[in-house]
């Protein structure tokens, strides 16, 4: 097992450097530089431009800039945003909890509903419910997030008035960000009704972000369950006279969950990608929105290190899933 973990860890190092090189190169391939964007289209005095490029260290040759970047990274220095001049790490820490909160809510929504729908669809294979779930999940999977978000806002927020339009909380509440997680911060604050308000704000974005993972999880659970239900040990369990609930959930679902768990891991990447759009629609102050703006502003340190941090997170989650999978399935562990 240890050598398996070591092998996986060994793979992480080149991946990490690959990402630094890729983000460093990609952001610089986009025409325009941060100083041009910062000073606005009309106020670009060549002398001032040169002075700002020098101040930001962007006048050096690209290899030197890359070495500077990697050198600082090695010391744990993520640099500061060219636009706001705040440290990238502190901006990330401020915004990341909002994305995590939204991501977890979306995953909870997708996980609970997806598993239930998948299991029932598998048990009632070929029924109207099965076709319905599969049809809806296919539609969910192909749903353009932006459009879906706006439709939900117009229906639930504007027409029915059930949920707020956007943001994390009614701004008339002045909540001190102690943990950055709005649900926790509202519980810690004295503001009456703020927790409920924060939950109401979370519902629509979580549904929008969770739609694609929900569709994937439902379909995956169904097909995995169908396979498992055909196995001999299920027949044996039934023959022993175990209750159907026990057969399905303890013997069936538990085994069917292995591939679904992997999908959960992979969905972390999907969630972070979806967060970019969901956060924009719902004015959710998370890292997705942060990165989009940074790309527009050619804020090199934010784009490079923001993507690096997210990539590390995705790698880490998948690494943990790999290990868990390896633990659960010895065949994977012994593969060379």
């Amino acid at each position: 097992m240890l050598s398996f973990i070591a092998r996986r860890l060994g793979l992480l190092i080149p991946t990490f450097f690959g990402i630094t090189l890729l983000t460093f190169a990609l952001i610089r391939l986009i025409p325009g530089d941060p100083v041009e964007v910062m000073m606005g289209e009309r106020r670009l005095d060549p002398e001032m431009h040169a002075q700002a490029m020098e101040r930001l260290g962007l006048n050096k040759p690209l290899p030197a800039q890359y070495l500077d970047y990697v050198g600082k990274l090695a010391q744990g220095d993520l640099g500061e945003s060219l636009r706001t001049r705040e440290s990238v790490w502190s901006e990330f820490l401020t915004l990341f909890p909002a994305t995590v909160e939204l991501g977890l809510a979306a995953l909870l929504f997708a996980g609970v509903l997806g598993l239930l729908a998948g299991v029932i669809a598998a048990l009632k294979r070929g029924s109207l419910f099965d076709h319905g779930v599969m049809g809806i999940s296919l539609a969910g999977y192909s749903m353009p997030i932006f459009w879906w978000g706006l439709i939900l806002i117009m229906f639930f927020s504007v027409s029915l008035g059930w949920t707020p339009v956007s943001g994390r909380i009614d701004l008339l509440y002045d909540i001190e960000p102690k943990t950055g997680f709005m649900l926790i911060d509202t519980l810690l604050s004295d503001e009456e009704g703020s927790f409920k308000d924060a939950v109401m704000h979370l519902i629509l974005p979580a549904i929008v972000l969770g739609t694609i993972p929900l569709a994937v999880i439902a379909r995956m659970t169904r097909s995995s369950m169908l396979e498992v239900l055909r196995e001999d040990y299920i027949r044996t369990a039934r023959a022993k006279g175990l209750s159907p609930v026990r057969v399905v959930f303890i013997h069936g679902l538990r085994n069917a969950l292995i591939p679904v768990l992997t999908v959960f891991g992979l969905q972390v990447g999907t969630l972070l990608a979806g967060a970019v759009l969901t956060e924009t629609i719902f004015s959710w102050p998370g890292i997705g929105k942060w990165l989009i703006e940074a790309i527009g502003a050619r804020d090199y340190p934010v784009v490079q290190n923001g993507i690096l941090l997210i990539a590390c997170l995705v790698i880490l989650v998948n690494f943990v899933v790999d290990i868990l999978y390896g633990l659960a399935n010895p065949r994977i562990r012994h593969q060379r």
Partner: protein
Amino acid sequence: MLKHAVIPLLVGAGLLASASSAFGASNLVFCSEGSPAGFDPGQYTTGTDFDASAETVFNRLTQFERGGTTVIPGLATSWDVSDDGLTYTFHLREGVKFHTTDYFKPSRPFNADDVLFTFNRMLDKDHPFRKVYPTEFPYFTDMGMDKNIAGIEKLDALTVRFTLNQVDAAFIQNLAMSFASIQSAEYAEQLLEQGKATDINQKPIGTGPFVFSKYQKDAQIRFKGNKDYWKPEDVKIDNLIFAISTDASVRMQKLKKNECQVTLFPRPADIEPLKKDTKLRMPEQAGYNLGYVAYNVMDKIKGSDAPNPMAQLKVRQALDMAVNKQQIIASVYQGAGQLAVNAMPPTQWSYDTTIKDAAYDPEKAKALLKEAGVKEGTEITLWAMPVQRPYNPNAKLMAEMLQADWAKVGIKAKIVSYEWGEYIKRSKGGENGAMIIGWSGDNGDPDNWLGTLFGCDALAGNNFSKWCHKPFDDLVKQAKATSDQAKRIELYKQAQHILKEQVPMTPIAHSTVYQPMSASVKDFKISPFGLNSFYGVSVGK
């Protein structure tokens, strides 16, 4: 017994709750379109940054009348200009307090030291504060103030004198612009001592109508009404909150649900439905902007060996009269635009109303092209902006319509577009052919249109036509160097006639600015400069 004990507890909890939240107070939530890059107005150039700092936290020596371009006293109560127009003496307002916050407690009121700190920091590259916190001041430089201010002196605690190298008739207007917001010298000193110079950009201290309270990136900015403001009648809101909402559709939905009371930049498709909503108001104003087509008049366009047909006046006249402006306004501006005739908006003083547009006449255009010896099928490039701007909501569509108009008279226009920064850089270098571009006024002065966009000094800058015409340039320069307004008006009118005859550009439209808001908002005025100010604004029930 228990009931008696519980009720006071509940009431106490309620009081505690109301202590920090904004329920019950007079609040205004503004759905803004983005996060500011910072709160030090001198460093920035966009309305998003200025709304969050210059318009709320700060004042300037002079200021623009709310909703207009007229300059009125601000932190300076009056000023004297020397006969040669090179010296300006400002008499400062007495007893103006800087904001008291949890990060700064001022020990003295505003005085000449603050004015000196503000301007010397922008002027002097070796200024102690700039050494510790290096930054550029792009707007200050762009308005030519770094080169034109020879010096600033403190005559006494409440009098300062600016000496200029050259007469600049727009100097007072320039001082009213957001970048010239007055900072506190005492606060700057404190920041230097504490080694926290960067806080000048994150925790602003000014004398303005609202006191900065909190900023959560991409979420909200909170301000409190300044109870000590020098013009108390201007502060009618207890809490001013910016709810940062980047998507235009979402901003409109929030407004409809009263999650915010004022917003900006509605999409053209949303304008009619919003106008019909009885709970909302939609004031509009002819934009202080201009969308136009600049014709590169150089003999040869940079990067091409072929002669440039647009170097000939007749070709430019032909292109100009071949443009069906009415159709462009209907399609590109979706009716929210006003046909432009001159190189400045009609609200700009000195605008010449006697000038008329050349009538749309494709036949005459063809004849002119024939006279100029331009063969049918001659190719030119037509540059289309890749972005939406206040003066042009859809440059790509405009380019396609111009292409069709010019095709009718036998000119083949090839549409070219680059990423925005690249677009500006290449066109400043003279690579453009005919070019869709525009301008929004900075300071209410005619020179900001005629000089900035068509002056010979702007050839490497915003003169995208590369048109340097001495008779025109002399008039504009002469007008800038005199402070006699009547004379200036006369000179600018003459200049507008020359520009119309020489056709270095075709003015297309001034886009209408809409500002959707709740019907409960009183006395909001649309700024011609595209800024959002909330002093003097109140919210009713």
